[in-house]
């Protein structure tokens, strides 16, 4: 049986779900960031799947969007990790449960 | 039909025409089609032949080159090199291989089991996978992707992760120090590699390795004539990527014993050595394909088989790494970093800008290639010299007092000759 658009969309959805679960449940800030990266990838898969299967005037716009997503994700990862290191330096921990005091 | 490009091109020469092994594979595929095999079989067969060919070639040429390197470095060092095992010491690599195979593979107690076991295997991946894209002959390329150059850089970047895994998992202070040094160095030189290869792609305006070799064949000017700076930068970045002198920071024997592969014994350590040589061949192959005209030699490839020329150039270029290993001392890590970020990157950015300008001028006015390319060659070589020396002066690398000063000869005793530096314990020369 052939592999259609739905297969890739389901794959993207599953990856997105795993990413959200990771982001919501993990205690370590770096693990949360890994979840976010996974979500970005899920979105990328969906974009590319659409640009491959769906009829459109310029099919490769999906790819251009994925390029933008990759750059933004890289920038976001850098800043988020810098924040994590800074939080670690001030609070000696990056365990999200403990970073809940607003009196910074 | 998969692999139709194997059937395309000039009328398929006889399968026994070994000037391009692609003919033989093409003949085999034709034979399979006549027998009416399933549609995917030729795909699998040619893929397997390619993979097995690359594997066998890289392992056996590594064995030969271990011997060649030790003899050549010995020749540079006024000594003989291995000559005990077998005639002229030719069996020395076999002896080494047997020794490495029979040695016991120790795993440190609190090592990170999974990563410790995985990294020797993974260290071979980037070294071997790069060869999938490199054309040994006109139709002898496993997968001629049209993002070939980007593929080479991407596979090179996996090396960083594997080095870190090796250093982190052997849970020993020296390995971690070596691993972190190497990772930081590999990242900064990845950028240098990208810019050096970008300068080539600007000229050939295609990332497909076959197209790049084709461009160099059509205009029969090698890209090294037009882009000398990019080649020099890539050689240095290549030397960094495979940890060879003058940049063997990873296993700087005299400093932190053996860097990230200290804790590995037996065949695991052997895999690291094998990967280092195969990665060296990969870098040499990339340089030959991108800058030195790949398997073409201004028409000679009609008679001499293309892949022979390619291997000749590859081994010839690999000699440069051996020569560097025999003569140059090692740079410190921060000097290497400073050299990459402060010196090489600005230089290469300017180089890519100039290459873009030149191609723009060439395409806009549609000059004839014979007139324009030699002019570009001369201009680029002169510019390369001016840029290298000028930027060196600006950054102070070539400032007079950095040059060696001979000691002052004195006849009588007791004279204190120099006013001591401000007494900073053990500090280095204050940056003037």
């Amino acid at each position: 049986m052939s592999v259609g658009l739905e297969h890739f969309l389901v794959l993207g959805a599953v990856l997105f779900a795993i990413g959200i679960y990771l982001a919501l449940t993990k205690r370590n800030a770096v693990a949360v960031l890994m979840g976010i990266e996974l979500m970005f990838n899920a979105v990328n898969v969906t974009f590319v799947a659409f640009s491959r299967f769906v009829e459109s005037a310029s099919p490769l716009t999906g790819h251009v969007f994925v390029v933008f997503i990759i750059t933004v994700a890289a920038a976001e990862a850098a800043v988020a990790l810098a924040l994590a290191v800074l939080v670690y330096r001030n609070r000696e921990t990056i365990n999200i449960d403990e970073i809940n005091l607003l009196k910074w | 039909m998969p692999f139709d490009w194997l059937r395309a091109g000039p009328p398929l020469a006889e399968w026994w025409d070994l000037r391009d092994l692609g003919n033989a594979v093409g003949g085999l595929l034709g034979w399979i089609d006549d027998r009416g095999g399933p549609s995917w079989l030729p795909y699998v067969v040619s893929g397997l032949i390619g993979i097995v060919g690359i594997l066998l070639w890289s392992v056996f040429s590594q064995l030969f080159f271990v011997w060649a390197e030790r003899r050549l470095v010995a020749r540079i060092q006024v000594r003989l090199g291995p000559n005990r095992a077998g005639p002229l010491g030719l069996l020395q690599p076999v002896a080494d291989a047997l020794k490495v195979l029979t040695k016991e593979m120790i795993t440190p107690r609190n090592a990170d089991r999974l990563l410790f076991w995985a990294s020797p295997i993974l260290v071979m991946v980037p070294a071997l996978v790069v060869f999938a894209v490199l054309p040994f002959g006109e139709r002898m390329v496993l997968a001629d992707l049209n993002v070939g150059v980007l593929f080479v850089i991407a596979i090179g970047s996996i090396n960083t992760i594997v080095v870190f895994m090796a250093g982190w998992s052997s849970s020993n202070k020296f390995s971690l120090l070596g691993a972190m040094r190497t990772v930081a160095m590999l990242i900064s030189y990845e950028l240098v590699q990208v810019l050096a290869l970008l300068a080539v792609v600007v000229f050939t305006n295609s990332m497909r390795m076959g197209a790049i070799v084709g461009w160099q064949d059509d205009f029969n000017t090698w890209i090294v004539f037009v882009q000398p700076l990019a080649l020099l930068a890539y050689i240095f970045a290549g030397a960094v990527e495979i940890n060879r002198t003058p940049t063997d920071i990873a296993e700087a024997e005299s400093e932190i014993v053996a860097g990230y592969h200290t804790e590995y014994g037996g065949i695991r350590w052997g895999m690291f050595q094998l990967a280092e040589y195969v990665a060296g061949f990969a870098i040499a192959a990339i340089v030959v394909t991108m800058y030195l005209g790949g398997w073409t030699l201004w028409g000679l490839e009609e008679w001499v088989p293309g892949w022979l020329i390619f291997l000749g150039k590859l081994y010839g270029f690999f000699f440069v790494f051996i020569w560097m290993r025999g003569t140059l001392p090692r740079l410190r890590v921060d000097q290497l970093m400073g050299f990459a970020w402060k010196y090489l990157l600005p230089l290469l950015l300017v180089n890519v800008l100039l290459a873009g300008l030149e191609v723009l001028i060439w395409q806009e006015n549609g000059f004839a290639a014979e007139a324009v390319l030699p002019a570009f060659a001369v201009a680029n070589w002169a510019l390369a010299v001016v840029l290298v020396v000028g930027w060196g002066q600006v950054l102070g690398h070539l400032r007079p007092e950095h040059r060696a000063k001979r000691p002052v000869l004195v006849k009588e005793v007791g004279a204190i000759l120099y006013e001591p530096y401000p007494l900073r314990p053990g500090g280095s020369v204050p940056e003037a």
Partner: protein
Amino acid sequence: MDDSGSVVAFWTLAALTVGSALMVVAVRNLVHAVVYLILSFVGVAGIFVLLSADFLAVAQVLIYAGAIPVLIIFAIMLTPRAARDNAETSLGLPALPLVGALLATIISIAVVTDWPEATRGGFEETTSVIGEALLSTYVLPFEIASVLLLAAMLGAIILVRED
């Protein structure tokens, strides 16, 4: 996408990607989690190859399997005494049903609506088309993205620099 080769490839790559993504959730040691994350990113790169997006597949390997994990590893290195385990937070329990519900809705939408399927095969050459698009119709976002990268780089350096 009908010949048997790509079907086999799809299922293996999908299994690899989802499997290693689940391992990232399950495994205790944070460094192992990063390794499995890299594995799933490489799986996604394979999926891109299946969807004949060759430029994106290679860019994915270069950035997601070469650069971002190194960032994550440096972050883990710079936070030595922080909990290096991959444990769940205390209030993790309600997350499972929420995620399940979200997944169900997305999948139902994906399967129910009939997308205007295109009849053409994969793309031959994507790099040059992406390049053209980036510098012609999308030149503004391209410039904004470069400014954003510059800002992110400076921000990260200033945050972490201890003078």
